[in-house]
């Protein structure tokens, strides 16, 4: 029998809250974190809205509970804050009988510091401490050292599905008996590097993003960190942790179509959802809610919509994109939205797709656009798709 995967800890920081409770409150109140850029020193301030974590570098140190010091990127601090919350939530501590791993995910790593000090890197020794921040592993190792995790660590980067793949790998390592407990997720700080990169592709909306709307016009970028704790049954016997939910299905597929565009029929999205559904052993009508990738670009939402239509047909579950709340947190989006999906299970609510007005004509169906309360939510699916067609779907269910 393959081992089951239970979720016992959640930790999250994003533009809508410094922790799980604040995130939940913002979602309930329909409070978006997207607004004018105030923390990132970019020339695009005032031109593009974004979902920034409402904290300076100094404030992030204080939220992380560590003394202010050199060598920490914004990305690392966001990761530590979220990982710390999940770690404490699941009352993690070293136990030689529970083999524990840390799997993190990021795409541009500590680029916020690299772009700030790049001239120095080229000409002098003033900021050598940040050179290693270029590497994705830097934030993972700082999280590992902070939480004293060393038995298994690695870092995944599959663009905007990175942290969903971190959760997927954690689940596979537990299922196959290689680990008993995994802290998995990811972090990404807003940087000039990727805001200008996305801007060069002309896929950032100058207004608030409107996923799945006829008049959608692109992405609002965000930032954050989100980690979840996965445990095997054997681990639960030792920790006695209350189970939040179970991860029962996952699927990873590749579009193999284009480096930045989604295929017109959404083949990657279709395959990742289908794989996850098959693995869960559930029927289509047993999925109560889908937290869609729904970036707000012309291309993604149509492609994802086509895939939803093809897989679910007339049995399309309620779905929404919560990116109008948090902004697109890129590498952190997979674990951020996994947690938002799990909050839907815990509180029996379905989150609204903010800013939605009229459906995409080619699809003819609409996301949930206002908060639904007291709805039976037993099983949820979370979609995360990335540049390069790296598509991943996760299915969580109440136990």
């Amino acid at each position, binding site marked *: 029998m393959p081992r089951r995967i239970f979720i016992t800890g959640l930790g999250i920081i994003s533009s809508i809250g410094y922790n799980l409770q604040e995130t939940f409150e913002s979602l309930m109140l329909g409070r978006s974190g997207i607004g004018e850029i105030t923390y990132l020193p970019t*020339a695009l301030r005032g031109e593009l809205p974004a979902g920034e974590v409402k904290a300076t570098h100094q404030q992030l140190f204080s939220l992380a509970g560590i003394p202010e010091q050199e060598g920490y990127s914004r990305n690392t601090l966001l990761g530590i804050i979220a990982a710390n919350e999940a770690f404490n939530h699941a009352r993690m501590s070293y136990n030689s009988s529970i083999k524990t791993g840390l799997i993190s995910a990021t795409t541009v790593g500590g680029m916020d510091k690299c772009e700030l000090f790049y001239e120095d890197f080229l000409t002098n020794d003033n900021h050598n401490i940040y050179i290693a921040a270029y590497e994705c*592993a830097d934030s993972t190792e700082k999280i590992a050292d902070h939480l004293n995790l060393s038995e298994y660590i*690695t870092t995944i980067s*599959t663009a905007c599905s990175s942290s969903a793949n971190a959760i997927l790998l954690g689940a596979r390592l537990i299922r196959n008996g290689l680990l008993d407990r995994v802290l998995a997720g990811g972090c990404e700080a807003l940087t000039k590097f990727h805001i200008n*990169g996305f801007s060069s592709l002309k896929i950032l909306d100058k207004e608030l993003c409107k996923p799945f709307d006829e008049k959608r016009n692109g992405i609002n970028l965000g930032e954050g960190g989100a980690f979840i704790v996965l445990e095997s049954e054997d681990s639960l016997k030792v920790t006695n942790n209350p189970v939040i939910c179970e991860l029962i299905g996952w699927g990873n597929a590749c*579009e*193999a179509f284009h*480096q930045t565009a989604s295929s017109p029929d959404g083949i990657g999205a279709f395959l990742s959802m289908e794989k996850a559904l098959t693995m869960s052993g559930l029927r289509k009508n047993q999925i109560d809610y889908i937290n869609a990738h729904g970036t707000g670009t012309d291309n993604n939402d149509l492609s994802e919509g086509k895939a939803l239509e093809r897989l679910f047909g007339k049995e399309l579950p309620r779905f929404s994109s919560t990116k109008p709340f948090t902004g697109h947190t890129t590498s952190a989006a997979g674990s951020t939205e996994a947690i938002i999906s799990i909050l839907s299970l815990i509180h029996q609510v379905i989150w609204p797709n903010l800013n939605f007005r009229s459906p995409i004509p080619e699809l003819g169906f609409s996301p949930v656009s206002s908060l639904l309360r007291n709805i039976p939510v037993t099983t949820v699916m979370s979609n995360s798709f990335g540049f390069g*067609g790296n598509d991943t779907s996760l299915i969580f269910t109440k136990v």
Partner: protein
Amino acid sequence: MAFINGIGLISPQNTLDPDSFLQNIVEQTADYLKCVDPLYKSFLDPLLARRMSRLIKMGIVSAKVSLSDAGCSMPDAIITGTGLGSVEDTEKILGEITKDERFLNPTPFIQSTYNTISSQIAINFKCHGYNSTYVHRSFSFESGIQDALLQLKEGFSKNVLVGGIDEMTLNHLQITRRLGLWKMNPVHNLSLLKTKTPGALAGEGSGFFLVSSLKGNRCYAILSGALTIYRPKTIDDLDDKTSAFLSIYGLQKNDVDIIISGISGDSNWDSLYHDYTSKVFPGKPVSWFKHLSGEYYTATAFALWMAANMIKRQVYPEIVRYNDLYPSRIKNILIYNHFKGINHSFILVRH
């Protein structure tokens, strides 16, 4: 475990031809060891190739060679390990945005994400299967191997393409020299051990391996497993973990015939390799490779190519012997590597 059925390796040596093994050694005195570039247009559509960065070309070509070597037309999964990803494209963007934002050329951004290699290979083969990328310093390739073996064990895949790829640029070399990682002056690669100075000789490479649940006609060796160890406390700790790792495959330390060690000529860190091999594997043949490949985060892909060929051909070339011991048989090879004493890894390859 998996059968290594095909290999494609682009490296600072002439390694891309599967029919030759460590002939015509490339000797050079250089700041870093640059790959011998194949004639890309003979492997790739020239129109497409013109827009690709060098790293992506290296990745796709080595992937194609490994598949054709194995006689496989389509892998079921593609997994890449890369410590640094697309350094050249990232530098282009950093160079631009630190001067002026906004007018960025989109192509380097598109190519700069770490998963570009895996996804470009998928696009090349139209492979919709599992696809992932590991980016954890010198664990990158080993994490990829662990994932590949898990894919085969799960039964979702029969043929998995797994690779380790990193590039070096003069710019990145100069930046990371500030961290004391590299030799400060050009070095003659075959005289690397004579330098006795701090820093390694940097290198680069792209090695892709088609690993399968069934043995192919041109099978090289068996890839048993990989292990990563983060911040081990002592050599004794490494010793215990080596024994535990080998025991998974029913082996004891004495069953290991050759240790391929990551000795890099760095006077700060080579002593750790010596301490390890003399404590854990006294009297065993020790091999090395970084005078041929240079040091980079996924250099163990070069070592895996070497181990697979040594087993298949039953040869132990003089150029890769570190001590003067010769094995009585070539059956079990253990690759041991570390980065700055922090990230340690093992790969076990068997006949």
